[in-house]
């Protein structure tokens, strides 16, 4: 597999084409957080909304536009995080960050399991300019989760 093919693995192409979680969902939950992130190098944007009930991330939805790497990454994280605990979201995020800084090499088995489809982004780590694309949604997720935990009934930013 060439570097280019390893970057654009089929699973990424599929997620980019049919993204999961696209379309912001109106939430009637005690803890809702929303984050708007922009990739300043290309102007790509994402607005991501989470709902938290107790310790569980019950909803992840988003709208935005961007390259196939950023769109697929948001789609994958929506699938991975929805229904999971806050702690699980945090370790999954940490694993994804580690994957991005691993220069194209796979991680250990434990973190690969955590990442599921997100392991397909391994090739992005070889291209420093694209790591930001893959992280855009994850930045929004973390920010939205912090806001959700601080919020009481649907506070959100811009």
């Amino acid at each position, binding site marked *: 597999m060439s570097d280019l093919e390893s970057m654009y693995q089929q699973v990424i*192409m599929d997620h980019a084409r049919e993204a999961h979680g696209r379309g912001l969902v109106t939430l009637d939950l005690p803890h809702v957080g929303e984050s708007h992130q922009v990739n300043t190098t290309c*102007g*790509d944007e994402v607005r991501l909304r989470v709902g938290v009930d107790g310790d569980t991330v019950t909803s992840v939805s988003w709208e935005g536009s961007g390259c*196939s790497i950023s769109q697929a990454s948001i789609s994958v994280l929506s699938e991975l995080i929805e229904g999971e605990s806050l702690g699980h979201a945090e370790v999954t995020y940490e694993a994804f960050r580690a994957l991005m800084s691993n220069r194209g090499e796979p991680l250990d088995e434990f973190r690969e399991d955590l990442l599921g489809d997100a392991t397909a982004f391994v090739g992005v780590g070889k291209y420093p300019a694209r790591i930001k694309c893959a992280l855009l949604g994850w930045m929004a997720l973390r920010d939205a989760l912090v806001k959700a935990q601080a919020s009481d009934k649907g506070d959100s930013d811009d």
Partner: protein
Amino acid sequence: MLPDVRRDFPLLTRTVRNGKSLVYLDSGATSQKPHAVLNAEADFYQFHNGAVARGAHLLAEEATDAFETARATVAAFIGAPAEELVWTPGATQALNLVANGFAAASDGLGGAEAARFRLGSGDEIVVTEAEHHANLIPWQQLAARTGATLRWIPVNDDGTLRYEELGSMVTERARVVAFTHASNVTGVVTDVATIVARAREVGAVTVLDACQSVPHLPVSVTELGVDFAAFSGHKMLGPTGVGALWGRKELLDALPPSLYGGSAIKIVTMENTTWLDAPQRFEPGTQPVAQAIGMAAAAQYLGDLGMTAVAEHERRIGAILREGVTEIPGVRLLGPVDAPHGVLAIATVAVDGVHPHDVGQVLDDRGIAVRVGHHCAQPLHRRLGLAGSTRASGHVYTTEDEARAFLEVLATVPSFFGVTV
């Protein structure tokens, strides 16, 4: 006809991405440097380095002489006398220097001779919708500081300027008209004479962003008839960290400085400062001396090739790029294939259904370096209905084979991403 210049550019011999030849098509962002430029900088540091315009020892004399000779060389390259050329760290700073001079005058600085730069409510600053952010934001902020109104000449659907709206946009209230000599997105060269004629009719100062023109076309600022022009070293085969502002001497001598420090002054007391005449009044502190010398070496190099030959070579490259793009299904060319005042060696494209970053990635995988994103021209992209695009831009060293290699790989992009055209 240009001679084969590629051997003059050491970087062009390197390989990229698993041993592929480099096809460098990002010269609109920054150009590669010939030995002549690299050697001029190294020679200065190895043999002549000293503080310019300070001290009386031999090295100080040699450094000052080299620095001022460089000024004369770069000025002559654009058809201007040396005393009308101000060194700046780049074109962005040169444009800010003019806008900040207006701001300082509007704050009441600069005495009676700065009156022509004073702006207030009721005055208008005119730009175009096609500007690079560097020639938009300084004017936008100047308007916000002074209460003047910012207006802009709009563009057509193909990104070219709507000259028919010049009369209604540039009115008696216009005090500044700032515009680019060539779009860094479409490559289309501006009809400078028409804009200058209108600006003169209403007595507005003209400021030309010449970043994309000076490296690629024969440019004579006196023939163009503008009042100020800004350009950078690194886009014209010279070093980064240096650029120039050219201005008519009587305007430069009246424009209040906005950057303060040593060497730019006549007399300093605890209460007051009087300035040297231009260009020194705008050059406080240590200047980019080696870089200025490198920029002069670049001007010399281009001058020796002959800018008419350079422009003709790049016209051919540009035509191959743009005509080729129009033949690829699913790819849209931004801007026209040709235009009345010419188009640079630029082809900027949008691939249907594929994000510019993804387009650039496929090209990069084949060793082809292009620019992706909004190219610091967000308003123009928004007007064209896009967030970003992919730009191939050439220079003296770009070959026809490289232009064709770009087209060949570009044509594979839609299918790689599963877009049916």
